[in-house]
């Protein structure tokens, strides 16, 4: 049981990931899909960040006071991944705006009924 809770960060990641994934698949509203997609991405960010954590570790500072360092690399990677995530969301929302203008709705099931020629 203790092992179950000691790795709780991974449980948080899995719960967030699956909720996000479920929203992407199940919802018809295009904006809600993007929110799900965001949740899905954020769970991966937490996966990276939590694995970079070291109990009692500090930033890698060259000083005699500190002996335990946590690797800063996962955090740096996630900074980049966050930027990528923001761009994706921005582009996705821009597309939804255009879709709403062109079709007059943001519900996917209503849109697919409109141009069923292919």
């Amino acid at each position: 049981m203790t092992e179950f809770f000691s790795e709780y960060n991974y449980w948080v990641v899995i719960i967030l990931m699956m909720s996000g994934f479920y929203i992407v698949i199940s919802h018809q509203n295009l904006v809600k899909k993007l929110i799900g997609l965001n949740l899905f991405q954020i769970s991966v960010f937490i996966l990276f960040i939590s694995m970079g954590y070291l109990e009692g570790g500090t930033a890698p500072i060259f000083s005699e006071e500190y002996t335990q360092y946590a690797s800063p690399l996962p955090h740096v990677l996630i900074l980049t991944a966050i930027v990528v995530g923001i761009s994706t969301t921005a582009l996705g929302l821009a597309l939804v705006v255009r879709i709403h203008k062109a079709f007059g709705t943001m519900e996917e099931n209503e849109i697919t009924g409109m141009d069923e020629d292919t």
Partner: protein
Amino acid sequence: MIAHLPILQVVVPLLSAPVCVVLRRHNPVWVLVFLASWTAFFIAVLLLNAVSRAGEIHYVLGGWDPPWGIEYRLDVLSAYLLLIVTAIGAVVISFARESVIREISSDRIYLFYTAYLLNLAGLLGVITTGDVFNMFVFIEISSLSSYALISLGRDRLALLAAYRYLVLGTIGATFFLIGVGLLYVMTGTLNIVDLRARLTDVEHTRTIVTALAFLTVGISLKFALFPLHFWLPGAYTFAPSVVSVFLASTTTKVYIYVMLRFLYSVFNPAFVFDVISLDLVFLVCALLAIFSGSLNAIRQNDVKCMMAYSSIAQIGYMILGVSLVSVTGLLAGIIHLFNHALMKGALFMCLACVYYKTGSVRLGDLRGIGRRMPWTMAAFVVAGLSLVGIPLTVGFISKWYLVLAAIERDWWWLVAAVIAGSLLAVVYIWRVVETAYFRDSDDAKSPARAEVAEAPLSMLIPLWAMIAANLYFGIDTSLTIGLAEQAANYLLGAGP
């Protein structure tokens, strides 16, 4: 200068992109993109030359030694992919000018070229980098720009296609990121060479197997392997014609390269294929892709959509080659990357010419087009024969090696399956050819259509250059087979 070629390969298109936004006016922008694309092509030729002499090229970014810094690493396979992508890019841009003016509103043309350059830079970056996180970033650069490119299509369904591709593409890229994260947890490194060295101790742990699963699914989504292909038909059908040409002949190939890189250079192929039996999964998916793709292609009435489904089938052939896990099989897969880029590029270029003149690529509107656009449709016939795999075309070379690889394993049923797949291709290509040559258009009903003439020379010359390449590399295979064989031996033999 020569030493810096690996980084220039990526930086030239990447830095030209923002310049396009500054220039804005169509002519200067086109000249810049034209020069950048051809420069990229010449750099790729020089790199291929250097790689065939030196074997491998390493380039250390910013003087930070690997595995701490990012390293760009080129071997035969990556140099070969660079050649495919940049050659297609250079031809497409020479071809694009008129078609883009016709299909994209004039205030957005410079944005189109910007997104195109970013896409090119992203794809080239994916190929050159030797760092898996850097690869993720480049994957996202090329993907984001391709969503924007697709959304420029005229039909409002292009927006929906771009949105769906964005959602699935992001899920694929995030799966890739999860896989990279799990690899990092176990090894503490992101450098491909270093990963391989450190993975040997831990490769049987559940974490690494999970990482492999996430990476395989994520990358397969990106190259549209059979059950994960739903984004592809819409994206190729509704994108502007030029975008379809470029995406169909480059993107999927680059992601198959990424897959090969992970299967052979990051993981140990013996582990992937013998212990996990990933080859079996690939074999089943590839066969399903070939038949479902071809059968769906036969049903389509929009020729672009037909070619998109045909692409799904052709991706099946590439993965089929990989799944055979032999030098000949891998060779067939790798050579088909190049050959399929040539034939599908040519086919989509024909459709771009037809769309340029008639504003439609629906089968019903193509009646009698063979007589009004003789050069374009003749090109379509040759490229179609190449797709089917008739001797003297590149398509034959791919099928030939695939069949050889199947015979090597004594799998005669697979030979039959490959031939059956080709026959299905005959059916859908014939549907187009029959409509174009043997059905009369209703000239009385639509007098405007009767005046349709041939596409402009600026489009026909690149198209026929592509057709010439289809024939040339179908006859003189020393260059392509030589490279693909080196790459296959390299992957199966020496490892990273």
